[in-house]
């Protein structure tokens, strides 16, 4: 009996600790108002495609894509410490491989980029792209959708080719690129 109780406690602790882990969503919400940070939401209508001209397959692929969320942090030379702290926080979140499955990664220490995803490999709910440059800042891009399938990547590309990207939605990002 004691064993069962022990196991139950251990399990609940384990589950609890999983739940209390910081998520990217929370990180985005917590930081969108902070100085140095910028969060941009981009909906799928940015592509501005003529839906009447799409094939059935293209329409299906496009509808699996929902929106894009971008968080960017611009390095302020006066607050170098802050950059390190925030960079580490994001890295810690992405290290949680139970939630974020890493696809690939490239980089050296402070500079680098990685791609991860949430969901199953042929039904992806979210792609996360992270990039960091030690003298610039870092950015996290979340591409959200429902049941996105990497096998459709080629179809998505064909949609992108026929798209007419609405640059207005990207305007806020320009400020940070400077």
């Amino acid at each position, binding site marked *: 009996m004691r064993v069962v109780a022990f*196991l139950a406690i251990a399990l609940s602790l384990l589950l609890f600790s999983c739940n209390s882990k910081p998520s990217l969503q929370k990180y985005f919400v917590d930081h969108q108002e902070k100085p140095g940070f910028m969060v941009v939401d981009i909906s799928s209508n940015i592509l501005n495609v003529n839906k009447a001209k799409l094939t059935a397959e293209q329409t299906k692929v496009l509808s699996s894509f929902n929106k894009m969320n971008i968080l960017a942090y611009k390095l302020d030379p006066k607050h170098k410490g802050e950059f390190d702290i925030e960079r580490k926080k994001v890295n810690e979140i992405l290290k949680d491989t139970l939630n974020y499955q890493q696809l690939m*990664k490239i980089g*050296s220490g402070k500079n680098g980029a990685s791609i991860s995803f949430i969901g199953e490999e042929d039904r992806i709910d979210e792609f996360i792209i992270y990039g960091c440059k030690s003298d610039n800042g870092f950015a996290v891009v979340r591409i959200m959708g429902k049941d996105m399938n990497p096998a459709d990547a080629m179809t998505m590309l064909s949609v992108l080719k026929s798209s007419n990207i609405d640059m207005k939605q990207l305007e806020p990002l320009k400020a940070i690129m400077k």
Partner: protein
Amino acid sequence: MRKVILIIALVLVSNTIFAQSVFDKFDNQDDITTVIVNKKMFQMLSKVEAKDKETQQYINLIKKLENLKVFVTANDKKSDDMKSVADKYVRSAGLEELMRITEKGKNVKIYVKTGATDSQVKELLMFIEGSGKEESVLMSLTGTFELDELSSLTDKMKLPGGDVLKKAGKK
């Protein structure tokens, strides 16, 4: 009973630690450039529809790959560290030396772990020892593939030491 739980707990904990490979410590170091491609990435890539025969060949190979890790450094100290870790790993994991080349002052060593047949490779480890300004490269590739398929991979991926690997594939 308690002992059993303790053992299970220990196994679980040690599993999560050892699930990381010996080379992961080179990750996130300032002087080392890392490229890591995970199994899921290969699986996803392999689902992309191929338009021509060459791409199809490439995709067939990708399906068989599991993990690619490349570490590059120009720092002598880190390079020595890499070398000792690689040497140790070769011994502990039972890898066999496939070939050894000295070319333009660079020392290239390739080790493999063979599978069911002699030409089937489960793991490929390459270490290019650079001296002075030349960079050192440690590359580990796991999966289940044929040695002669490697050339199509090195052609497409532009892996470091590709020309040497090509020679190895022809052996």
